[in-house]
């Protein structure tokens, strides 16, 4: 398989924030490991085959640790970022419940975080839901005001999956630690794409996954700091693997693929970042003069791999169908059939109608400038066609494209 085609009528994949294709080198490595002893043997077994599998796991952990500048022993392998988020949030909340039951998060977190906090609310925890500024960034003063003596955990994502907005994790972490509160960071969208130095950052838990960095699906990781290590309860029991925090037989071949993807990401990070910026600029400049267009989330503090826009007078589901064969996301990327307006965009102050018309374009290593040009043309054509079909009247003299600014 060669991925999305680049013809005018073929599918054009612009949904890299949802998932990425396997890097060819990772695919080749995985294929080899499927039948290799080290790939299928149980890494917990003490015999030679098991030791070879464990060597693969350890090598992968070292590669991930190098990317995060942490100790490999601080990494716990999981099935993906959703499990990592659950383990950190539920595990820390449970362990520290005797000290206090107050938790803090943002309304703009991924559902793999917000749904965990909602579940904890049902179990009697007191959750403070912070709204970001209109540009998507958290006001540190709002966090400072929300922290209480009994606040046990704050969860804040590094790069927002819908808007690409980058939070100031260092500032958030300093406030948390000054209060004796643990910080969890969902880094599913930033791991391997932005520099993360856990030796310097005041972060206690960090979630990441392989399939956002051209690695395999089904494997993720949770970083647990030395400070937080004794402050988390496991979600599952049996086997005692990974110091009992996440038992179960480790999939050595998937973990090895994750490690290779991380190493490749580290080597390409600067080049990938520059390329994504070029792609994002090209798309934005190709559509920005459409009347009534809004760019959602801070451009200044945005990850260049994501561009989220709303068009006034356009219904989102129809826009999505009209954009075919572009593979883009509307609403929540993880559940694009749920047509309720995006909670993330509503938290940024968008109206229901604006949120419903939002489209997320996300780019990756295989995206070409030609695909971007086709996407810009198709987006313009679709917006204009649907507006021509609509009885809705745009506000007189619709403003030029605007960007969310705080």
């Amino acid at each position: 398989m060669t991925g999305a085609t680049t013809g005018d009528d073929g599918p054009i994949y612009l949904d890299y924030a949802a998932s990425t294709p396997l890097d060819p080198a990772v695919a080749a490595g995985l294929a080899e490991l499927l039948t290799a002893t080290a790939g299928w043997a149980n890494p917990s077994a003490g015999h030679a085959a098991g030791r070879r599998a464990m060597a693969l796991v350890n090598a992968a952990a070292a590669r991930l640790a190098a990317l995060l500048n942490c100790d490999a022993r601080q990494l716990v392998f999981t099935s993906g970022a959703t499990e990592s988020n659950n383990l950190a949030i539920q595990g820390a909340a449970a362990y520290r419940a005797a000290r206090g039951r107050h938790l803090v998060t943002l309304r703009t977190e991924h559902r793999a975080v917000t749904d965990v906090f909602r579940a904890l609310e049902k179990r009697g925890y007191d959750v403070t839901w912070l709204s970001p500024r209109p540009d998507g960034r958290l006001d540190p003063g709002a966090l400072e005001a929300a922290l209480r003596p009994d606040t046990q955990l704050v969860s804040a994502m590094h790069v927002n999956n819908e808007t690409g907005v980058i939070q100031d994790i260092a500032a958030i972490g300093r406030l948390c630690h000054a209060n004796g509160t643990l910080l969890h960071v969902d880094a599913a969208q930033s791991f391997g794409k932005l520099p993360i130095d856990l030796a310097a950052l005041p972060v206690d838990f960090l979630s990441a996954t392989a399939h956002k960095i051209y690695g395999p699906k089904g494997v993720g990781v949770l970083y647990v700091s030395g400070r937080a290590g004794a402050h988390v309860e496991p979600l599952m029991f049996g086997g005692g693997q990974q110091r009992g925090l996440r038992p179960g037989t480790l999939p050595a071949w998937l973990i090895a693929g994750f490690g290779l993807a991380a190493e490749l990401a580290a080597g390409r990070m600067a080049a990938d970042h520059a390329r994504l910026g070029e792609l994002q600029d090209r798309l934005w400049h190709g559509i920005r003069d459409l009347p009534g267009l809004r760019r959602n989330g801070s451009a200044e503090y945005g990850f260049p791999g994501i561009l989220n826009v709303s068009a006034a007078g356009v219904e989102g589901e129809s826009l999505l169908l009209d954009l075919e064969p572009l593979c883009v996301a509307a609403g929540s990327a993880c559940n694009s059939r749920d047509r309720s307006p995006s909670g993330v965009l509503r938290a940024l102050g968008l109206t229901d109608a604006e949120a419903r018309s939002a489209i997320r374009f996300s780019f990756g290593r295989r995206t070409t400038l030609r695909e971007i040009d086709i996407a810009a043309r198709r987006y313009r054509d679709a917006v204009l066609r649907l507006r021509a079909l609509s009885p809705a009247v745009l506000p007189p003299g619709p403003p030029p494209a605007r960007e969310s600014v705080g």
Partner: protein
Amino acid sequence: MSDPADPYGPEVRRLFRAPAHAGTLEAADRVRVEGQGVAVELCMLRAGPAIRQLRFLAWGCPHFIAAAEALCRDYEGRAVAELAGYSAVETVRTLPVPRGKTGRILVLEDAARALAGSAGITTPSKTGVPPP
């Protein structure tokens, strides 16, 4: 080969992509109805008791736009009185439209009946009892 996971189906896609009856008409009977997260404007030119031209403008999901196009296509050339008998339930069945979107197609039914009413046609009572 059709995609079993496709939420639209070929007929909805065809009508949505090429709505031949989208637009508006000058000096025509005109109604606009909103609700259920959709809006539609229907306008009609008459030739005696018959519908000479029927056009729509719609804001809503692909099913709603396709249903509006199907309505205009199907009723152009027919008697205005027949427009009052337009059935959302029938449209939901034939296009087809997911059951969860029936309310949106009922907005179209309201618009069709209001348009017939604007031409002096009374909506037939479903119970057989003449309306007061």
